[in-house]
């Protein structure tokens, strides 16, 4: 079994345990509100860090960074206004494609 498959299976196992553990043992567990809140913040912070990594990774030509800033702003704006992540994503990707064509 390859290393990547092992990582994927471990990701799945860890995620599954997070899903099933409370269903089976909720009556024995008591996490304080502060701890639950901490995990919520960590979850958001990890996602925000990944946005930064993904945002800077693909911008190879120098001029593309400006386009990506605009597209990221549009992504967030549409998602916030419509409360629809799918629309926000579509708007951002379309913006990057259009701006890249116009700027090329």
């Amino acid at each position, binding site marked *: 079994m390859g290393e990547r498959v092992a990582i994927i299976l471990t990701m799945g196992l860890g995620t599954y345990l997070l899903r099933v553990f409370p269903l089976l043992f909720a009556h024995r567990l008591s996490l304080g509100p502060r701890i639950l809140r901490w995990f919520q913040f960590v979850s958001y912070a990890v996602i925000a860090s990944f946005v930064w990594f993904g945002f800077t990774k693909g911008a190879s030509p120098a001029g593309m960074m400006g386009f990506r800033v605009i597209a990221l702003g549009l992504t967030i704006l549409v998602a916030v206004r419509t409360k629809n992540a799918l629309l926000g994503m579509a708007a951002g990707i*379309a913006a990057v494609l259009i701006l890249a064509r116009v700027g090329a």
Partner: protein
Amino acid sequence: MNRDQLSSFTEGALAAIPVCVAFFAITVTFGIAAHAAGLAAGEVLLMSAVVFAGPAQFPAIELLPLSGQAMQILLSTLFINFRFAVMSFALVPHLKRVRTAGLVAGAQLITMSTFAVSFLRFQRRSNHDNFIYFLGVAIPSYICYLAGTVVGYYFGARIPAGFEEGISFIFPAYLAALLGAELRERRSIAVVGVAFLATPVVEALVPGWGLILNAIGVATAAIGAEAWWESASPSS
């Protein structure tokens, strides 16, 4: 399955139609991005099947092709997916009559969307068929999720040149849109903003571990600030 159960399952499946559409569209982009990242078809489908959580899968396809990232992938998966534990907690009062084997089998299908649709229905009307309703929502959603992954992966191989910039933007766009659509509370928005801006600084200080350490640091600081704020203003 008796007539009542079939009715509950169908009710759930009908309520899942918007979830299916969204899952299919999101996983098509996931499949395209995974193909662009160089993952094998089997790896991509396996990930969708066993993880079944987009916010954790998108980062993983970026990190998997790099060597020495296993611990970072696993920790970030756990941190991102901790929300499922909170959702499972919330479902417990509504699934009291379900046998252990059913819970063990059904747990894999808990996602933000399948939880939200089911939980809202349980708030309106909770009965002995709750679990069947949940399966009605979750099973079609899971099938759409896998179908979208396969379609996206094979579609990804046929995308003409000139779309690379758009493909490389799928991953940050998906996560940013997810945060934009989900976050309403000011303190959570502040956590996201600080974490985003601090990432390059922490990554420069601790290469390879910046992401995890940054998230832990920002979350801990936010909890500390929140505790201080509450103690400083006891009336709030």
